[in-house]
């Protein structure tokens, strides 16, 4: 059974130039425990899909079906991570991590205990009282990941969460993510323009076409190795990478000057 299903979603935005149709009849399914990446040309409406699923934007047409029933959005049930770490600068690491628990009304003591548990598991011990500005980019995104995981969301919504980090930090955090997702059996939707990351992390990749976005193709990624480095070293990695690049029509060779 599919966990989440988008059916014929349409969305337009009013701009100065008139109405721009961003999504038109977009449909796809996400299975329970799935790791789905959505890739597409820039400006194709990936972030719009993301915001509709998160419940931050209402679609003009279409329905969102969650566990068999139509819903308006998944506010309160999703974990949400962007390229920006979105840490509240006036809160310490610990206070940032408990944010979601606090919103849900968990007692301060319980929230604190749970947070300290995560902080130690993810190697941030000793930084619980530091303010975000004192941390490196990788550490900040690690805090953001813990804040996302600790509320135990049904679905993780990730919008290029690691794209601002250097490659080593990124591999490390991808590993942390995969590990947590496998262990906690989470469903993940990753929006990215990074084909390499999509192939390495996902079980399925949904390719979107030009705006207004429709599903152009769905690729199952059949790599059993789940670690970020292991997946990239798998012999099948290059094949998938190549197929997705072709799908996106990426031109890397400069045309000869006439």
């Amino acid at each position, binding site marked *: 059974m599919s966990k989440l299903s988008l059916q014929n979603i349409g969305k337009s935005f009013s701009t100065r130039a008139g109405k721009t149709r961003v999504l038109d009849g977009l449909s796809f399914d996400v299975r329970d425990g799935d790791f789905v990446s959505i890739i597409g040309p820039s400006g194709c409406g990936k972030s719009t899909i993301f915001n509709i699923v998160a419940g931050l934007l209402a679609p003009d047409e279409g329905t969102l079906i969650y566990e068999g029933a139509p819903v308006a959005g998944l506010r*309160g049930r999703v974990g949400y991570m962007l390229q920006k770490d979105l840490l509240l600068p006036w809160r310490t690491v610990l206070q940032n991590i408990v944010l*979601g628990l606090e919103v849900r009304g968990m007692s301060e003591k319980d929230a604190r205990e749970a947070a300290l548990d995560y902080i130690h598991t993810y190697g941030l011990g000793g930084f619980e009282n530091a303010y975000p500005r004192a941390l490196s980019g990788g550490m900040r995104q690690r805090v953001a990941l813990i804040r996302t995981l600790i509320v135990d969301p049904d679905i993780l919504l990730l919008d290029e969460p690691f794209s601002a980090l250097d490659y080593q930090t990124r591999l490390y955090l991808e590993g942390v993510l995969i590990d947590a997702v496998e262990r906690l059996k989470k469903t993940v939707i990753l929006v990215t323009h990074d084909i390499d990351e999509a192939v390495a992390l996902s079980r399925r990749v949904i390719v979107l076409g030009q705006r207004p976005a429709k599903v152009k193709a769905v690729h199952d990624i059949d790599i059993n190795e789940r670690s970020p480095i292991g997946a990239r070293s798998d012999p099948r990695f290059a094949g998938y990478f190549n197929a997705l690049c072709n799908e996106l029509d990426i031109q890397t060779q400069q045309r000869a000057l006439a």
Partner: protein
Amino acid sequence: MSGLISRLDRPVGYVALQIGLILGVLALWEGGVRAGIVSAFLFGSPLGVAKQLLRGLEDGSLLFDTWITLYEAVLGFVIGTLAGSVLGLGLWYSRLVARTFEPLIVAFNSVPKIAMAPVIILWFGTGLLSKVALAISLTSIVAMIAAYQAAKDADPDLQSLLLTLGASKRQVFAKVIVPASLPAIIATCRINVGFGLVGAVVGEFISSQRGLGHIVFVASSFYDLNSVWAGLFTLMATGFLLYFAINLFERNVLRWKQDDHRQEIHV
């Protein structure tokens, strides 16, 4: 020469330069008066001012007048800033109210509030109340506009994050909007504390029995320039004190903004 400059480019160096500058100006002033170039009648003299300050300190009147003015200014500043900031943040809460009131607030803000001083005295009498009311009228609108602007500028992505976590509007307000607006609100305090003093002094100019504004006003009508300066210097010191109080407050409230170890860049 460069050795001298690098030696001066340190805290102790700055302070020495500052004190030197002030003493230099005072010496020129005093010298000018004695040489007959500067009129003591119109400008007073540093030694005369010092004498007035000492006399005021001795009989306690200077401290009392300072206390009166400080009390009026701080009370007006605190009430005006608090009320203005709360209203400004409140405008974020309701788009309808904000849209309705925004142009009215801007219009009201463009009235020079000092021009209302005579009316405020009519309404609130010649005592403490009118000075506080004047200080409130000067500070509240500024605080309100600043707080509303800061609330509007709060990062929408942080608000989205709270919403995806299932937060209510009230929670978004308390956990994002208010703390995100605090730096701007406190920065406004720094300007507003001066306006509080302006309100108190102008109120005292129009009608009063005590206060530093009273001293300056009365002394100048008697051409007692030494007393005028004594009042002005005390006002300056009072303003300075309030400014540092705000700085101290800021450092304690906005701990998260403190630079732990940022390197200074010399250009």
